[in-house]
């Protein structure tokens, strides 16, 4: 925080300078072409999203910084960040944005791009595998509980084959097979 009096060395800085050559000017357009991201460039960096986020205190890159990084074209930093996967998806940021930037939705878009490029936590791929193999996230393990309540023994109404078929042809299928 304090600046050095020694002028022979560069001053201490709070953030590293941005290397312009590493910026990807197409990144913002890429995000904007995804669902719910039309208002992205309306962000004026007021950081209301960060104030609203219940866990921004444990994020190294804060929500408003992520949005700014997208606009600047810091593609790799955003997509490889752990923060996008720590999003609670509570929509508190999005709800409060005075510019109607759909912040949480945009983080979903980022996670989709990150998944495509392999920056995805193993446990999320495991959930995808579960869906792909079982066609639903949870299966009944204690059928006596259902029996006690005179409910039918299995999860009612779900077609697991349809889910397996659909997801085997989308990114879930590619990611799970790629991980095997």
């Amino acid at each position, binding site marked *: 925080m304090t600046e050095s009096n020694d002028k022979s060395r560069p001053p201490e800085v709070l953030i590293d300078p941005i290397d312009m050559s590493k910026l990807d000017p197409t990144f913002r357009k890429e995000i904007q072409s995804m669902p719910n991201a039309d208002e992205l460039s309306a962000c004026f960096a007021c950081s209301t999203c960060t104030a609203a986020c219940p866990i921004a205190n444990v994020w190294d890159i804060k929500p408003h910084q992520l949005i700014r990084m997208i606009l600047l074209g810091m593609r790799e930093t955003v997509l490889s960040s752990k923060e996008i996967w720590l999003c609670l*998806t509570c929509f508190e940021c*999005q709800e409060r944005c005075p510019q109607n930037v759909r912040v949480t939705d945009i983080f979903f878009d980022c996670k989709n791009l990150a998944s495509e490029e392999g920056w995805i936590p193993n446990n999320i791929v*495991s959930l995808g595998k579960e869906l792909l193999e079982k066609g639903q*996230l949870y299966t009944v393990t204690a059928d006596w509980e259902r029996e006690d*309540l005179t409910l039918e023994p299995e999860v*009612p109404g779900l*077609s697991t084959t349809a889910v397996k078929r659909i997801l085997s042809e989308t990114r879930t299928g590619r990611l799970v097979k790629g991980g095997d």
Partner: protein
Amino acid sequence: MPAYSLYMGCSVPANYPNYEASMCRVAESLGLELQYLEDVSCCGSPNLRAMDYWGWVLVNARTLAIADNIGHDILTPCNGCFGSLKDAYHLLKHDTNYREKVNEELAKENLEFKGISKPRHFVEVLYTDVGIDALGKKVTKPLDGVGIAIHYGCHLLRPKDVTELSHTILDELVEVTGAHVIQYSLWKQCCGATVLPVDEDLAIRLARDKLKSMKESGAVFATVVCPACCNQLDLQQLGLRESYDEEYEIPVLFYSQILGLAIGLDESDVGLDMNRVSARPILQHL
């Protein structure tokens, strides 16, 4: 008798049959006709949305299209299912290009998203279609004014332009049972369920913050309307004994259990013995 297409999802039937049973019995007592949707898809949860948006839209659009063929609104007890179905519904209603793309895929199964059947959460149907006055008349065993903290759950309320739900409905629904609604500072805060697979410690901390805030404000019970929130607030209390050496002793009940007891259903009808932190103390407050 208004009829609804019932979408139970996978988490409620697999993990919380007490929620499924109590909801169905409450609906029956109130004259709501619930018909299980058949052959529909698991919603995939926000985690599927994160890794595979297109796949997530497709599975949910498929469910919406099947419901369209029947024509009734969809009723679900789960915030996760509600959030996924309503979000997909909102997208397909507003984005015609996306809708065309999705319908091309659905056509392979002779299905089409038409947007007739609206996904609705059980508590919103209670509030809007049954109404507080009618519910009040059904209450035969009112609660004695005991303090209940409400956890709405994020995907029930937000984003508001998608959910179209007011953040006061559960307050009114709890009050009509005779209970007193406890105001607490973290009432809006997330339970942490979504980050459980990515950062368990953080998820536990969020649940703890929430329970602490409830306890400090004098809550004797808490109520939820989502299986994932229930995992975090009920089941996680057992975990907190080990991880933080803390005891909260806040029984967490699904709203349908509380309403069920207040309209005279038996404790076995609402599966009261299945709550992880014993919910039996509620019987002393009727």
